[in-house]
């Protein structure tokens, strides 16, 4: 058996240097990463990368920074297991492997000129932040922008400062809710679905982007449909077990779709009849 | 010289298999207590075997002990086949003998290098030797691995062999396997020479105590390991079926293992016993080594059991190589490969019976005895492990030894005693598995 070195393997990584590490919550950490020579990752909001640590493995992680941010990109990682746990031990200056970006992101070109409703539950804000910052940086290309954020308790809230900043902006409307408040909490209490009925929107020119834990989708989409937002205008990002990111390994398959190639972002009309999707 | 008081209590004797304590109490030069206590947790194998198929016995009993699991396997199979009246083929017997050689080689190497050598080199274990005697440690591990690799090829693994079962082998070595095993063993020769050289330099304590030595004996010129009758240096000779009248087990209050005696107060089994009984039948190369290191029958220094093991290593290696060469010549009949689950398919007829297996395993003669009903289900099981037979002898050795070394310091006495026990290579976890002990005063 011969062992040949490959020049064009899809499994080859790029080296990413960690510029900044910041602990966000007890289980989530933020990373700013640069590719060699400041090479652009060249991603779309909503796309993900495979983050690789040799000896540990790879994990798909959404890019949370906007493509408008040059020179580096950002990830926010929740510690749930092997790779994510090992990532949490890294320091500034360490290197990680990066493959990608992979998948279909949010169709920002189609959003242009339309209103945007972003709904994020829990970790869902990670990919959505990429979109929101992209939209803010190209603010005049879009119509009304409204953001709904939900999480379990105020302590679990991610990107607090940035959310505050969004909140202060006049051209963005923001609403937060928590399942369980603490004494300092001034915002809403309750499920994120409860925020939707109160929103004033023009269904035919609104695109709703929903990212959150699996159970959230069903209920949020129901509310959105009540608002008569066209199915085609509802975008979701799905999480599946993934290994290769190349549409081969089979783990992420959702019926006939490969989440890594056909997704992770899907429009609701495309998947509403896909039983394994939601 | 002032009167000596010595109190030794070695709790959890190390570098032996299983849990045992040495307790010695000397008051005013008078030996009051001198015991080898077996404190292994009971595992109830005898009970667990009840209701099991005779074809499963080997799978279960080999798990009595991981060190001599091939030995238990072979004794168990022999007892099982004896019970149901199955006679193994010549090829099967040959391969079993070869397996037994590997078991002895493997176990003896482990004992000589990892368990005894540290004492002789004045360290607590082989770990410090990694720095001081790296080549020796490497050689030991390499030799051990070779035996292990050969067992991997032959029976899947050394610890709890897979393919050796009642009836024969579930997988017979292919031609390339025989070649591979031959190559491995051939390479072992060089390390074996170095081992002999090393062992020749070892200085063992000088101590003599004449005792009765028991092991397999036979009328042919093969060094008996797997077949033969049971004999002793005191002239006893009996069929293995009469094993109970050989071991004459009796109970002592201080130990959870039974004690054994034959013609005298105690007897010994193991490499030294085999050597004393059958040294004439050893492979010429083994004989030469015995001569070179000055081991002669009848040797009555128990510490030299380790040297007898060395001689046996050479024998097992050389005889093993010859078996392989023979198999290469005759070829292997693969039609004899058997399918596991013989009882499930009723391939081998079963009948009620009582079978005994007597096999020379590394530490001495091992007896397995099963009674089965006409469905081949075990109704009664009994095993007598070499160490069980030896503990009584060890205690007698200790009783003679302690007064002779009272001049030494407590530490030295402890070490001498530990070394004595270790010389027998006791397998304590085995010995506590089949008991029926009464605790008189507890």
């Amino acid at each position, binding site marked *: 058996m011969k062992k*040949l070195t490959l*020049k064009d393997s899809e499994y080859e990584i790029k080296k990413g240097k960690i510029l900044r590490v910041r602990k966000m919550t007890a289980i989530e950490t933020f990373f700013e990463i640069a590719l060699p020579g400041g090479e652009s990752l060249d991603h779309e909001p909503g796309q993900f990368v495979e983050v690789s640590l040799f000896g540990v*493995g790879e994990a798909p992680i959404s890019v949370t920074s906007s493509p408008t941010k040059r020179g580096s990109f950002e990830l926010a990682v929740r510690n749930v297991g092997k790779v994510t746990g090992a990532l949490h031990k890294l320091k500034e200056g360490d290197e990680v492997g990066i493959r990608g970006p992979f998948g279909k992101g949010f169709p920002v070109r189609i959003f242009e000129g339309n209103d945007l409703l972003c709904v994020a539950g829990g970790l869902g804000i990670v990919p959505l932040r990429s979109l929101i910052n992209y939209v803010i940086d190209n603010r005049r290309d879009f119509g009304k922008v409204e953001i709904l954020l939900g999480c379990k308790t105020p302590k679990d809230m991610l990107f607090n400062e940035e959310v505050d900043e969004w909140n202060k902006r006049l051209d963005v409307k923001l609403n937060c809710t928590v399942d369980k408040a603490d004494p300092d909490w001034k915002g809403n209490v309750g499920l994120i679905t409860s925020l939707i009925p109160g929103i004033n929107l023009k269904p035919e020119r609104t695109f709703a982007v929903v990212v959150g834990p699996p159970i959230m989708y069903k209920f949020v989409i129901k509310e959105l449909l009540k608002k008569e937002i066209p199915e085609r205008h509802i975008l979701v990002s799905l999480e599946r077990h993934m290994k290769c990111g190349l549409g081969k390994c089979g783990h992420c398959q959702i019926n006939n779709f490969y989440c890594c190639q056909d997704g992770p972002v899907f429009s609701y009309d495309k998947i509403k009849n896909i039983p394994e999707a939601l | 010289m002032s009167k000596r008081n010595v109190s030794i209590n070695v709790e959890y004797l190390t570098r032996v298999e299983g849990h045992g304590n040495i307790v010695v109490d000397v008051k005013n030069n008078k030996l009051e207590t001198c015991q080898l206590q077996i404190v292994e947790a009971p595992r109830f194998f005898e009970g667990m075997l009840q209701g099991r198929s005779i074809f499963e016995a080997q799978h279960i009993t080999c798990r009595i002990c991981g060190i001599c699991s091939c030995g238990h396997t072979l004794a168990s199979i022999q007892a099982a086949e004896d019970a149901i009246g199955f006679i193994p083929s010549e090829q099967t017997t040959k391969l079993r003998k070869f397996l037994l050689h590997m078991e002895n080689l493997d176990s003896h190497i482990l004992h000589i290098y990892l368990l005894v050598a540290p004492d002789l080199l004045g360290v607590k274990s082989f770990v410090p030797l990694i720095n001081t005697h790296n080549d020796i440690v490497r050689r030991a591990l390499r030799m051990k691995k070779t035996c292990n690799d050969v067992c991997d090829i032959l029976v899947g693994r050394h610890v709890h062999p897979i393919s050796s079962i009642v009836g024969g082998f579930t997988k017979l070595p292919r031609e390339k396997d025989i070649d591979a095993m031959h190559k491995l063993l051939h390479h072992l020769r060089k390390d074996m020479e170095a081992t002999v050289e090393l062992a020749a330099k070892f200085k063992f304590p000088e101590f003599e105590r004449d005792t009765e030595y028991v092991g397999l004996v036979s009328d042919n010129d093969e060094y008996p390991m797997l077949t033969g009758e049971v004999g002793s240096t005191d002239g006893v000779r009996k069929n293995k079926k009469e094993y109970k009248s050989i071991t004459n087990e009796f109970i002592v209050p201080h130990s959870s293992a039974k004690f054994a005696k034959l013609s005298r107060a105690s007897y010994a089994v193991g490499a030294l016993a085999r050597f004393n009984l059958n040294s004439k039948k050893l492979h010429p190369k083994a004989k030469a080594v015995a001569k070179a290191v000055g081991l002669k029958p009848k040797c009555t220094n128990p510490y030299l059991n380790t040297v007898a093991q060395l001689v046996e290593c050479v024998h097992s290696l050389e005889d093993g190589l010859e078996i392989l060469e023979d198999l290469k010549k005759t070829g292997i009949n693969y039609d004899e490969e058997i399918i596991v689950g013989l009882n499930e398919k009723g391939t081998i007829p079963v009948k009620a019976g009582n079978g005994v297996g007597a096999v020379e395993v590394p530490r001495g003669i091992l007896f397995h005895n099963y009674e089965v009903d006409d469905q081949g289900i075990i109704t009664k099981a009994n095993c007598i492990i070499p160490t069980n037979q030896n503990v009584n002898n060890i205690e007698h050795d200790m009783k003679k030894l302690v007064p002779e070394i009272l001049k030494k310091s407590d530490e030295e006495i402890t070490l001498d005693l530990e070394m004595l026990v270790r010389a027998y290579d006791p397998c304590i976890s085995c010995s506590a598995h089949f008991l029926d002990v009464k605790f008189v005063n507890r």
Partner: protein
Amino acid sequence: MQYAVLKKEYLNEFITRLAQDQKVIAPVAKGYNQFAFEEVKSGEKVALDHIPTILPPKKYFMPQYETLATYHANSSQKMNPVVECEDLILFGVHTCDLAGIQCLNMVFSERPKDINYLIRKSKITIIGYGCNDYCDEYASCRLVHSHTPNGGYDLFFINLGDKFFVHINTLAGDEITEKTNLFEPATPADLNALAKIREKKREIFANEVPVVHERMPEMFSKSYDSNVWEDLGKRCLACGNCTNVCPTCYCFDVTDEPNLDLQTGKRFRRWDSCQNEAFAKVAGGESFRKERSARQRHRYFRKFKYPMEKFSRLFCTGCGRCSRTCMAKINLKETLNQLVEEQGMKNLKAGRETE
């Protein structure tokens, strides 16, 4: 020379000559009516009329364990992507397995391409072999049209009794006939004999499931919620045998294996199965195909529906391996028949049309 014949008595010599300068792989009997592709040095052990081997020849295109890269993580993340490959001649590949290889070819040459697979593929020469009769009752090759060759080979052998009729399909195939120098040109009589065999084959190979091949995806679309899957789920042990033996299953897992220094090691992939418990599990413990019924359904849909949409091809080759190996007697033909029945798609003429 496009058609040739090889006398049967030369087969042994043929393999021996081939094996002189290359590894030759051929089906070999393992007992209990089981076969496996293994290296051979001569024709003696070759079992041409085998029922499909335990594992399909995919193991040579996509090995069970495959190193993707070696790495060195000392100071930074450094990797060396590799492919392990060797020149092979696969001899005696039945038409169903040829179809299986073609399916894998499609998957792995679709972008993003799998270079490892493609390089290995380029090093393998394939000599096919036609079956003149069914292997056993599990085969359903007629249903999916893989009972006859549809390309995918360099040489193709057909048993004419005392000789093999040989189709030379590629230059590589031609080279083999030249090099071994045992072949003769096919005569008109040989072509006649071939035609007869084909005729007979048409009679023997009847459609195993009375449904029109092209309507299969439609049938599956309608059967998503069928009780059939519940039933399979109750029986399935999730042992994964069905997918491992399937010539068109290619799911895998990627894992790192560090050396003891914890700095160097290799990244490798190994076969995985959608039937395995953890296959679709994500962090948080949610599994998207937790039920065995859903996993079984997924397996069937990945054969008869999804690939039809993507590659316009069924990913079942009719080899019958999954049914043969299933401990729980889950039988592909039976399942298909149940679905046909349920969806009222029975068409007794299907597969009987003249070809």
